[in-house]
């Protein structure tokens, strides 16, 4: 069955990379945002591959369903037409940005290549990545982190309201 999986992987990976490139290069921010949403959903597909069903569903609900809708809303609200190009950032940026990005990819790939990850995944337990297992972990080991992040959300919410509201 490896071949079917490989085909699926290559397909999804291609979609992910292409949509990511669309995010960066498309002139229209709306298309960029939609591409990003697509990219996020395709990454959720990878999560399913990797036995992370709960996270995959969360990814769709939170990222695609909420965050990206919000982004789209703002883009449409502000009627932004184009966000491309360098403008004032100048000549150095024009040369250095592609070079350094390529270097970034190079270093990361180099790191992966040097890494000691095996050729195949280890066999995981049956309930790996289920809601129950992730939830148990979340509310035991990471309980305080969970509470802290909820606080972060409250702060972010208040901050967003304060920033965006015309008059309080």
């Amino acid at each position, binding site marked *: 069955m490896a071949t079917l999986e490989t085909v699926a992987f290559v397909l999804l990976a291609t979609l992910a990379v292409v949509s990511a490139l669309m995010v960066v290069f498309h002139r229209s921010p709306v298309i960029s*945002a939609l591409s990003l949403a697509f990219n996020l959903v395709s990454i959720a597909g990878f999560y399913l591959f990797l036995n992370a069903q709960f996270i995959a569903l969360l990814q769709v609900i939170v990222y695609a369903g*909420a965050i990206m809708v919000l982004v789209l809303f703002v883009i449409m609200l502000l009627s932004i037409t184009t966000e*491309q190009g360098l403008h004032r950032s100048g000549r150095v940026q024009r040369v250095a940005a*592609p070079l350094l990005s390529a270097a970034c990819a190079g270093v990361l*790939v180099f790191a992966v290549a040097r890494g000691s990850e*095996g050729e195949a995944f280890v066999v995981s337990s049956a309930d790996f990545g289920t809601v129950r297992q992730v939830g148990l972990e979340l509310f035991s080991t990471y309980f305080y982190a969970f509470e802290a992040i909820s606080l972060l959300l409250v702060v972010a919410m208040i901050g967003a309201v304060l920033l965006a509201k015309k008059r309080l």
Partner: protein
Amino acid sequence: MAPQSMLILSALLFAIGVFGVLWNRGAITILMCVELMLNAANLAFITFARQFDQADGQIYVFFIMTLAAAEAAVGLAIVIALFRLRESTDVDELNLLKW
């Protein structure tokens, strides 16, 4: 489907996100590219979680998602506030804090 291919895909997506941040001048697009980078990292986390059969990686992703939500909310609010002031989301217009 080896872990390495997943990680390489993650690295590529990350690099694309990096390039997007460096190349685009629109604040919203930059925000989106940051999300792209975060997602690349998430993918790596999930891969590691799968590889080492530990749920911790998934928990981290959970937290990163929360973080991304907070970041998007505040970031977009800033963009709106900026747009009110400048009628533009061009980050290169915002270069007052310099020598």
